[in-house]
C-alpha cells in the first residue's frame, strides 16, 4: 500500500472508531437532534470528503 493511501486509511479508521465510541459514551444522555443523530451524519460527511480527496487523481 502506498504511504498516502495508508495515511487516508488511518484517517478513515479513526473516524469509524469515533462513530462507534462517541454515541456510546459522551452522547448516551443527549436526547436531542444534535446528539448522536448529528454526530453520525457529520462523521459520514467527513468520510465522504476523505474519499473525494483520496480519489482525486483517478483518471
Amino acid at each position: 500500500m502506498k504511504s498516502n493511501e495508508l495515511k487516508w486509511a488511518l484517517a478513515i479508521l479513526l473516524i469509524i472508531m469515533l462513530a462507534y465510541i462517541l454515541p456510546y459514551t459522551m452522547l448516551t444522555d443527549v436526547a436531542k437532534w444534535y446528539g448522536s443523530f448529528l454526530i453520525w451524519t457529520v462523521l459520514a460527511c467527513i468520510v465522504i470528503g476523505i474519499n473525494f480527496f483520496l480519489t482525486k487523481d483517478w483518471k
Partner: protein
Amino acid sequence: MTTSMVWWGIIIYILIALFIAYLSRSGKQTNMGSYFLGDRKMGGIVSALSYSATTYSAFMLVGLAGLTYNGGVGALGFELIYLMGVSLVAFFGPRFWVVGKKYGYITPSEMLGDRYNNKNVALVVSITSCIFLIPYSAVQLSGVGYLLQGMTNNEISYSTGVIIATVVAIVFSYIAGIRSVAWTDSLQAVFMIITSTVVVLMLVHSLGGFSEFFGSIETTKPEHLSVPGNGFWSFATFLGMTIPWFFFSLSNPQVSQRLYMPASLKSLRIMLMGFMIFGLIYTLVAVIWGFSAVVMFPNLEKADLATPMVLSSEAVPPILGVIVMVGIMAAAISTIDSILLTLSSLFARDVYSQFRKNSTDEMQLRVGKIVIPIIAILAYLFAELELDLIAVLSVASSAGLLVVVPSIIGTFFWKRGTAAGVLSSVIISGVIVIVLELFKLKPLGLTSGVWGISLSTVLFVVVSLMTKAPEEKANEFLNNVKIELNKFK
C-alpha cells in the same frame, strides 16, 4: 389507495422499465464480458445509480424505517457505518479494476482462483455465494409478496406479488444482461430517491417542520434519540449488525463484480462518490421516515407496519403513496436481478467450467443464460415454501459471505496467502456461521458475523503459514497490480 391504483402503478412502472431495458441494448451480447460486465465500458453515473439500486433493496424503507421505529437513532449509526465501509472501494476498487482488465476476470471468485493458483478456490467461493444469496433473493421476493398483499388488504395475493417480481427480474436480466439491469436499476434509483425525499419532506412539514418534529420525538420518545436508548441498540447488537455490513462492498459478489465494469478509473470514482452521496441522502430519508412513524403512530404492534401505515396516512396523497409503494417493489427487483446475473456468471465461469474443461466463452455464456431463470425459479420456490432454513440462510447471508473477506484482502496485500488457507477459512467458518444461525447461538454474546470474520481471519493466516504459497503467481500478480496502477494514477 385502491387496488386498481396499485395495479396501474405496477403496469406503468413495468412498461417504462421495459422500454428503458430495450433501449439499453447496444452491440452484440455474444461474450461473457459483454453480457455480464457491459464490455467493461460502463459510464460513471449509470454505475453509481445501479450500484445504489443493487445495494439498497426493499430493506431501506421497510426494514431500516422499522429498526428506527423500534430502537431509534442507532439505526442511523448502523447504516452510516455501512456507508463509511464503502470506503473500501477507494482502496480495492482500482485494484479489482486493473487486474480485471489485465487478466480478463469476469467474476471475483475467478480472480481468487487465479491469484491463489487453485481452481477449487473459485469453485468453493462461488458455491458459498450461491448458498447465501439464493435464499437472500427468496426473502426479497417474499418481501414484494407481503408488501402488495398488505397494501391492498389481500386483494393482490402474496403469490401474485412473488410471481410478478420473479418474472420481472428474469426479464430485466435477460433483455441485455448487465446493460438492461444497470439501466432499469438507474431508473429505479432516481425514481426512489426523488419520491421518498418528497414524502419525507411532506411528513416533516405536516408534523410542524424540523424543530417541532424533533421536539415531539424529544417529548414522546426521548430514548429514541440516543443509544443504547430503549435497550434495542445494545453495543453488542450494534457491533454484531455493523461488522458484516461494513465489509459488504467486498463480501457480496453482486457489488464487488461492479468494480470490473467502469470504463475508466474516473468512472469508478464517479460510481463511488455518486453512491456515497446517494446513500447518505437515502439513509437520512429512511431514518426520518421511521421517526415520523414514531410521532404519528407511537403504539404499533409490529415495526414492519410503520411504512405501510405512513404510506396510507392522510399526510401522504394516495397517488404518491402508490408511487412509493411501487418504488419499494422496484427496489426489491433491482436487487434480485443483479444477484441473478452475478450468480449465473459465477456458475458459468467458476462451476460449469470446472466440469467441462476447455469450455469456450460462448459455451459459458449459453450456460449462464440458461441458469438465470433456473436460479430465479429456485428463489421463487424458496419464497413460496417459506422454509425456516431459507429464512436462516438469508439472515446469515451478510455474515456468511463475510468469511471470504480475509482471502480477498490477502489477494492484494499478503503474498503468503495460500489456496489451503482460503479453502479452510471459507468452508469451516461458513459452516460455523450457518450452525450458529440455525441454533440461534451467540457464544460470549457475539453474533455469527463477528465469529465468522474472526475465525476466517485466524484460519486463513494460520493455514496459509503452514502451507506453501504460490510464490511465482503471487509475485507476478502483485507486480502487475503495481505496474497497472501506476499507469492510471
